[in-house]
């Protein structure tokens, strides 16, 4: 287990480095921030002053060297847009995205495990078909479109929920619901499939013969054995949730990491983009390690 995690750390560090180099040089190619940040009538002198101030006049490789040096001292640089440390801005955004993703994923897992198990138990029946259709539609619908249809329906026509922003618990309902749909559609299918094969095992017959009731049979005996493939998909989907967060946060004006990243890219705030990408990569890495640990917890055979 330790060796496995050690290998993972090395592999992740390598991909993190690759990602950093790629994004650093790519983002420098997008154009000169001086043109964007200074007023249109700024003189050439003011522009060069701006570049000197932020170290943008140095050769590209020297800029990169300085960046890596600062990074080694845990300094992610300063945001051009807000004149504050980039890492602070990124962490503030994560303080919004983590609860959003956490609540969504929690609801998805609970709903998918319960509904998927019941569908597998009732295979071929009405409930099974209903879950299949709902999950298929959920996996097929574009999230940005669901978001704006939901805004028209619940915010504009019915006036039940706010259209965008944050502040009250009501503001969270639409973003969480929209973000819920896609991962739910995918995970419920995996739960169903995995549960189906687990239910055909011999120990299930034994338990049934001994008179175990249906509900304990599903949720006590079989579920734990059916969870391994489900955990894998949950991990993949938790990372993919960030894709959805970009869309949902942009539409609902939610001040999370997705919106921050889009805004920073559009405004050439390089340091924030880089910091956001690196924090995201680290977060995904931590989650992968947690998932590896969860395997060991669920299945003693993997532990050594």
């Amino acid at each position, binding site marked *: 287990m330790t060796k496995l995690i050690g290998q993972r750390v090395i*592999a*992740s560090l*390598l*991909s993190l480095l*690759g*990602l950093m180099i790629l*994004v650093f040089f*790519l*983002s420098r*190619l*997008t154009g000169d921030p001086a043109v964007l940040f200074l007023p249109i009538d700024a003189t050439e002198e003011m522009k060069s002053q701006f570049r000197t101030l932020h170290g943008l006049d140095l050769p590209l490789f020297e800029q990169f060297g300085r960046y890596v040096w600062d990074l080694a001292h845990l300094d992610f640089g300063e945001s051009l847009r807000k004149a504050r440390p980039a890492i602070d801005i990124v962490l503030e955004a994560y303080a919004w995205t983590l609860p959003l993703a956490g609540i969504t994923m929690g609801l998805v897992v609970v709903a998918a495990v319960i509904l998927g198990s019941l569908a597998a138990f009732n295979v071929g029946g009405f409930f099974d078909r209903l879950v299949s259709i709902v999950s*298929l*539609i959920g*996996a*097929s*619908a*574009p*999230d*940005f*479109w669901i978001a*704006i*249809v939901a*805004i*028209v329906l619940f915010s*504009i026509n019915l006036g039940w929920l706010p259209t965008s922003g944050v502040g009250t618990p009501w503001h969270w309902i639409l973003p969480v619901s929209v973000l819920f749909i896609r991962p739910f559609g995918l995970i419920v299918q995996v739960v169903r499939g995995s549960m189906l094969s687990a239910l055909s095992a011999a120990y299930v017959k034994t338990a049934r013969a001994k008179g175990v009731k249906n509900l304990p049979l599903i949720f006590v005996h079989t579920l734990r054995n059916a969870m391994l493939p489900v955990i894998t998909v949950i991990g993949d989907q938790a*990372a*993919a949730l*960030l*894709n959805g967060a*970009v*869309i949902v946060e*942009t539409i609902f004006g939610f001040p999370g990491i997705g919106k921050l*990243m*889009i805004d920073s*890219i*559009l405004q050439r705030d390089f340091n924030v*983009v880089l910091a956001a*990408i690196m924090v*995201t*990569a680290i977060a*995904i*890495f931590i989650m992968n390690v947690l998932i590896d640990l969860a395997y060991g917890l669920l299945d003693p055979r993997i532990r050594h």
Partner: protein
Amino acid sequence: MTDQSLSKTPAIAEPRSTSMLSMLWRDKLAFCSAVVLLLIVLCALLGPALLGDLATSQNLRGRNSPPFDLARGWAFFLGGDSLGRPMLARLIVAARSTMMVAAGAVVAALAVGALLGLVAGYMGKTTSQVIMRLADVIMSFPSLLIAVVVLYVLGPSIPNMILVLAITRIPIYLRTTRAEVLEVRERMFVQAAVVMGASHWRIIARHILPVVAPTLVTIATLDFAFVMLAESSLSFLGIGIQPPDITWGLMVSQGRPYLTTAWWLALWPGVCIVITTLALNLLSNWMRIALDPAQRWRLEARSTKDE
């Protein structure tokens, strides 16, 4: 089981294509999906040539005209957009760019991914390790964010969209191909080919690829839906396809400012996306069984029961 598949393949080549069709016809849901997809492909191929002018002709009196009204002609049956262009014609024309980006990305990712996967599975450990680590780098980050960064640098255009989406999807094909190759190359017929002195490329192309291909086609169908959703999302965010080109995702985004006054501008293109991805999902579900020799009896058994 292994040598059987070798000797049978040429003999059943002809009746198999007809039996595939009749198998498709018997599964009504899959058949409908195939028909819907065929219609969309036809729209994409013929639409711009037949309706290109109609879809761009502005008609200020028809601005945001409501749907289900035949007074202005059939083209306005789904309403008019903010410049008075007929929605129905625009939806048909937009099918082309939507399909082109998705098909281009899927085909490119499939070709590169399958090739690398074949090499990684067939060659030694070092080559395999290098290729797999590269795939891990791509997989380790949310695809949409990679696409946003790269597109912003390269500039949004149809070839760049295809490039970016293809890169983010390569690992899927790579991993599947490699896993299958690792298993297939141990089988008897591959070893027989080695003994008979076949070259590496001949073994890969003639003996391994045909076994792996059905899985890849099934995944590609499903992936087509995913890529289409990704393209729509990027176009919706404003860093994908740019006007005057149109895709369904861009049309949703163009309809967004008129949500309160003209809901149909954003609704119809979304419905088109949902129908297409749903059809792709259903068809891929069917293909997973139909193209798998070990499971095909399920569909064939059902067909003999019907007759």
